[in-house]
């Protein structure tokens, strides 16, 4: 389509048959004064075109850090990728020269952040911030770029886009601001969209609108969507597959319906039991006991063992291997069978 696209398609190692996005054994640590926080400890993920992968997990388990590592926007220092691969169509982005990597960002892999108010620059109009990408990546004139910005705002259904393009972020409501954020991520027609809790900062009614918009745009464009969220309800309605993270690792990965029907990892099971369900009204909720581990001091063996009701001696001593329990299902638990109840 354009030079940048052609350039990216010709990157050494591009493999048309490879998955759209594939993360292997990703490790990220933060070296701070309080010690080394191992935020991501061997994450494996895979995303195909048109697919929605939901990434679930407690606060602090490394979801955002994983997303930032994929984008290549970790705060370095203190954050460092210490091991692993992030392959986009077979090309390992971590080994790419910075200039090429920068072109992948926004052009091929884009990101929507949680809090649009702080994620948008307060001192520039949204039009400027949208047009900026066309000017920098496509070499458009200010005027053309602004025209494109208006079109984008239209696409995310911001009323009166032509006028609002000159407004500043703080002049928009929360939902509208998140729409701007989405427009910004979609500006250069990326193939992968990473949405990091895109609705957490919004009211419930607005949440649904934004999720619908995202799902719709994803289908229109056939993008791969990596949706980071806490919201199990959202996951059930929009996701194809789920990856559950604990202490910087993906502990279970499965198609969405399988996981709801029969979790294979003790942590997933506990997580599902901790959400309120209408059919179980009146019964006490099972809250997961204990706290998530400190990332400076992750428990040995299976990181979940201090909180796990299934745990036995071996869980403390040996990290569980990843069991493939169905063609599309992986779970890392020593007692998969017991959890599954077979």
């Amino acid at each position: 389509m354009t030079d940048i696209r052609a350039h990216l398609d010709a990157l050494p190692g591009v493999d048309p048959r490879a998955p759209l996005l594939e993360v292997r054994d990703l490790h990220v640590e933060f070296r701070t004064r309080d010690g080394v926080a191992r935020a991501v400890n061997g994450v494996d993920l895979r995303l195909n075109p048109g697919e929605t992968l939901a990434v679930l997990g407690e606060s602090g388990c490394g979801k955002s850090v994983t997303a930032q590592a994929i984008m290549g926007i970790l705060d370095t220092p203190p954050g460092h990728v210490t091991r692993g691969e992030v392959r986009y169509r077979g090309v390992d982005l971590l080994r790419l020269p910075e200039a090429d990597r920068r072109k992948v960002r926004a052009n091929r892999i884009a990101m929507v952040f949680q809090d649009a108010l702080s994620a948008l620059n307060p001192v520039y109009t949204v039009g400027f911030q949208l047009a900026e990408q066309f000017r920098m990546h496509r070499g458009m004139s200010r005027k053309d770029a602004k025209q494109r910005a208006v079109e984008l705002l239209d696409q995310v259904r911001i009323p009166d886009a032509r006028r609002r393009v000159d407004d500043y972020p703080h002049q928009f409501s929360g939902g509208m601001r998140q729409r701007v954020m989405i427009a910004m991520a979609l500006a250069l027609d990326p193939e992968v969209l990473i949405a990091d809790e895109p609705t957490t900062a919004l009211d419930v009614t607005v949440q649904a609108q934004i999720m619908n918009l995202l799902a719709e745009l994803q289908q229109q464009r056939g993008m791969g969507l990596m949706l980071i969220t806490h919201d199990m309800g959202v996951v059930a309605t929009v996701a194809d597959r789920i990856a559950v993270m604990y202490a910087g690792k993906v502990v279970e990965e499965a198609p969405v319906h399988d996981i709801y029907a029969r979790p294979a990892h003790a942590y997933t099971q506990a997580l599902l039991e901790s959400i309120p369900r209408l059919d179980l009204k009146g019964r006490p909720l099972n809250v997961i006991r204990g706290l998530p581990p400190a990332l400076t001091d992750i428990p040995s063996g299976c990181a979940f063992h201090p909180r796990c009701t299934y745990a036995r001696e071996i869980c403390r001593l040996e990290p569980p291997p990843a069991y493939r329990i169905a063609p599309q299902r992986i779970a890392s638990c020593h007692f998969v069978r017991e959890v599954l109840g077979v």
Partner: protein
Amino acid sequence: MFRYIVRRLLQMVLTFFGATFIVYALMFANVDDPLQALAGDRPITDSQRAVLEARYHLDDGFFTQYWHYVSGLLTGDFGQSLTGRPISEMLAQAWPVTVRLALFAIVIAAVIAVGAGVLSGIRRGGAFDTATLVLTLLVLAMPIVVLAPLAQLVFGIQLGWFPPTATRDANLYELLLPALVLGTLVVATELRVTRTSVAENLRADYVRTARAKGLAPKRVIGVHVLRNSLIPVITLIGVDIGALMSGAVVTEGVFNIPGVGFNLLRGIRTEDGPLVVGFVSVLVIVFLVINLIVDLLYAALDPRIRYE
């Protein structure tokens, strides 16, 4: 924006009366013989006494006196010095020199502060950052009464790099040393504020967004971080002008530059009270106006203020 301007203007009017009242009160409240207070140790002639009495309406109550003084200020009548020269005339001569010196100092200070501040904010804790921190500390520790004479001694007299004094129509080169001295008054704070603000803004979420948009680091910093980081620095400039005015008194005195500060210093040394009060009043007004402008500039830079 319009309402913001109106509000600021109203505030300024209030502050104007407040500030001039304080200056007036500092000088004249509770004095037995106000005229002698004006003249200090110096004997006053009868004709001087007559002029001063007419000027300050000393027979009236304090507030009436103040009112006469303020209306004088507002109509451009700043009074006469004890030597009989109208202060407005002296000011007209002295202003251009001082304005040039101050602008020069501001430009030098701003360039150094923003340049070095951004660099050390980006690499906090690095060698450059540590070096600038130590330097700013040293600069902060040098009151202008130390810096100006020493700079003149070392660079003007001993090394002979710059002319040790400057004339009324000094060229930029002649003004360079005094401007540098004057600039150091504000450079350290400006630099530190820039540095902190850059370091803070670098961690802001919108910077992460900018990087996610695939922008080059130069643009991320030059466009996104810089504009946000300059906002607190701009507000400083208003305060800085006050420091510069104070500093100009010493600097112009040391380097013999016949500007406003020089005249003020001479007024102090010759016990010329009316001159001192007149000059200080005008400087206070100028300071007010500049601060108003700075505030408007601030609003232009930060849309969140503008639309409040």
